[in-house]
């Protein structure tokens, strides 16, 4: 079974709730529909010039996080 959207949302909420100085503008997932056995990359746009990339494993673990200035 691929990771569920609910699990992804819970991981992202956990991160976002801890960093209230960043307000979320949009979230996009790659792949847009989770595939079994594959990690999901969530891109959280927090401003015009800043976004966070979160890599989430099929088990719902936050494998990595990067905050990037574009």
């Amino acid at each position, binding site marked *: 079974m691929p990771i569920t959207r609910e699990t992804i949302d819970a991981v992202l909420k956990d991160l976002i709730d801890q960093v209230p100085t960043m307000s979320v503008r949009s979230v996009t997932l790659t792949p847009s529909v989770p595939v079994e056995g594959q990690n999901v990359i969530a891109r959280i746009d927090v401003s015009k010039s800043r976004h966070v990339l979160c890599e989430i494993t099929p088990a719902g673990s936050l494998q*990595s996080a*990067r905050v990037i200035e574009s």
Partner: protein
Amino acid sequence: MLTKEQNERLTSVGPGTPGGELMRRYWLPIAPFAELLDNPVKKVRILGEDLTLYKDKSGNLGLIGDRCLHRNVDMKFGIPDECGLRCPYHGWLYNETGNCVERPMEGAPQAGIKQKLKGYPVRELGGLVFTYMGPLPAPDLPRWDLLVWPNAIRQIGVNIIDCNWLQCQENTGDPTHSAWAHGHMFEYVLEKKGQLEDRSSDNLHTLHQRKRVGVGIKEIYANQTEHGFRKGIRYSKALGADSDKDQEHSTVIFPFYTQTGKTGATRSEYQIRVPIDDTHTYHICYQAYSAPPGVEAPKQDIVPYYIPPTHDEKGEPILDYVLAQDAIVWVAQGPIADRTTELLGRTDIPIVVLRRQLDEQIKRVEQGLEPMNFFWKSPDMIHPTGSPPDYSKPETLIKHSFRKYYHKGFANDDADRYGPLIETVKDLHRKIEEYEIKLAGQAVIEHA
């Protein structure tokens, strides 16, 4: 920010707490072995439990409950016997399992008593004494590489820090704190003492390096690894950095180690944050100074230890070296940082990953699974930063290169300056520099 419940879950270490159960799946360093040569009996408090560590006359190590079953005398006054520790009051003798094996003056034959003291397994490795306080059988003691790396000398700095262990460990998950704590604050302190010119004239000085940490940040990252996580900063010249570069910071080894400097480098260190209880941390600076092939490190029978002072004789904090700068900001967050009121920003993303990893491993233990870095059989040497160093590629060891030059004054910025080995280390660094100059000369001749 976290909820009150989340904060308690991550910070509590007593028996039966989620975090405490996780900690009880690991071998915990509790003392330098050399300390037991000075005094073979030591009172220790670890994970909220009061215990007595001893070395008996046969050289066996034991860690048992701190009060004699008979009349509750503190066993820190115990007398080491051939096999075990005797209470000084009436001579009751305990072995390393905590069983009372002799009660003098109680007459013979003596019936066994069902009561016993706690007794936890103890082992020594690399000059540190470790204990395991979890369910038996105990896992193998991990052979992290700095503990067993050849051709190196070592010293151990120990402190008790008056705050929860997670504050110390989160410092490791925070790659940007050094810009201020070890940069601007360092400068401020030296300025106040009138020592700025003397201590920081070289552009490689810690404070100059660290002030640049905060300039030109393009990206801050944290990646979980097999043994913990790595984190760092990518810089952009376009944003004001000296150049486009990737600066990896110290490596987190789960649950409470961090490594600075590459294994095999002329100076590398584990900082180990062992919870004494919820509001105190036993902090260990395990410092290793390795020599490359071609230079021989001095032989060492015993790894010496020291206590780097964090306050002067007037009780004022000493703030002119890195560990003390860290310690003051850890303690200044309070006995247990109130994470319900914090306000994290972009630089704290790695801390979020660290907390998430900790929570995930707590969950594994709750589910009856083995957590990260739990080994039934440890490899002969575990390299938490990845593959072992390749001395044929010296550039792999260049990181933190200013610490190659303790003989040129850089030791003044680190806790190492208080260590009993510091003059030996300076001699070693001098020899390594001479060797490198000789090698460079040979390379020029061969090239010509």
